[in-house]
């Protein structure tokens, strides 16, 4: 560790091995990060090490405040920034499998993408304010007409609603959307209430009117 002794002003402040009863800052950092366990008497009994550990610990405790201050300082995220990001991504990236419609006329080949079906499932949230549909999976061979398909949906629901009744309501809505717009043989709809969202802080402004 000879290179650590090249900086004279550091030696003055007592962070070199000769100030630390032979220990190094590297070792002391490991010791601190291990919660000072197992206890090392040669560190715990060294005033130099204790001073260095205190300084390291103070530095560590400051880091979250630095991150918070930096984050607050980065300025607002305006809509032009969001547009800039969105303009750089492929919107149809997640079309998924193609789900055929049966047609009497063999010259017709109609289909709907899995991505569009997920969009239909999500639209069920519009039937109940505060509901947000999250991830949606279609399990089964959707490319085969008539094959059984299980739909698994995660949702966030607003606080205060009786959950079983709301779940049943949403399940019915999703089933109705899929029946109206697809030919999928939906055998089950599994709904997982993943989050119960509390009303927004101090927000009297988003009430249903």
């Amino acid at each position, binding site marked *: 560790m000879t290179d650590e002794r090249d900086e004279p002003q550091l030696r003055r402040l007592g962070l070199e091995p000769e100030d630390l009863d032979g220990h190094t800052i590297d070792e002391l950092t490991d010791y601190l990060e291990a919660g000072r366990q197992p206890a090392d008497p040669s560190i715990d009994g060294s005033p130099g090490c204790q001073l260095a550990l205190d300084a390291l610990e103070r530095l560590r405790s400051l880091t979250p405040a*630095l991150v918070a201050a930096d984050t607050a300082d980065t300025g607002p995220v305006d809509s032009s920034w969001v547009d800039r990001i969105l303009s750089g991504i492929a919107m149809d990236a997640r079309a998924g499998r193609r789900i055929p419609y049966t047609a009497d006329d063999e010259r017709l080949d109609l289909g709907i993408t899995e991505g569009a079906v997920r969009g239909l499932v999500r639209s069920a949230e519009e039937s109940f304010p505060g509901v947000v549909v999250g991830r949606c999976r279609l399990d089964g061979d959707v490319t085969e007409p008539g094959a059984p398909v299980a739909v698994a949906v995660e949702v966030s629901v607003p606080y205060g609603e009786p959950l079983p009744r709301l779940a049943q309501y949403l399940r019915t809505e999703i089933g109705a959307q899929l029946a109206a717009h697809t030919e999928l043989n939906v055998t089950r709809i599994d709904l997982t209430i993943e989050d119960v969202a509390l009303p927004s802080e101090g927000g009297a402004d988003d009430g249903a009117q």
Partner: protein
Amino acid sequence: MQEASRAGALERADDRIVAGRAIDGDVDAFAVLVRRYTPMMRAYALRMLNASADVDDVVQESFVTAWQRLPELEEPAKVKSWLMRIVSRKAVDRVRSRRAHADIDEVEQAAPPHASPPRVAEARAEVEALAAALRELPDDQRECWVLREIGGCSYDEIAEQLGVPVTTVRGLLARARKYIIVRMEEWR
């Protein structure tokens, strides 16, 4: 009104719901992630690149990569740390390519300028002092410190990302810590 209230609900939904929906290809949900995590990602890139003009480019590249790779995100609830890892990688890439350039046409890296003691309100003084000390650090020390202390990377991960041995990472971190502590002591 209905429309606005629905957008509000998505805006407030937790990460798992929003990221799960973005994985499914919902651009509105992805936009929520962009709004939610741009500040943190900018802040991280800012420290990593020492306030260079590349910050926005790095954050934008990170989001483009994130959109492409969202289907690989196994735990949508952890989208925040996943995004931070992506921005960390992108920032490191930027740093490395910048250094490759510098090796060719730069003679000697200028000594970092010494900042004058920050004069700010008591409450923020220590944070400001830490920020100023970080700005003075040589690039390699600062990068290690940011990856470790802000990015939460292990020594092995830092070594892998920066392409240097773990012993070097330890040495750089020790020097960075000593430098920061000394500078902060001087400003007390």
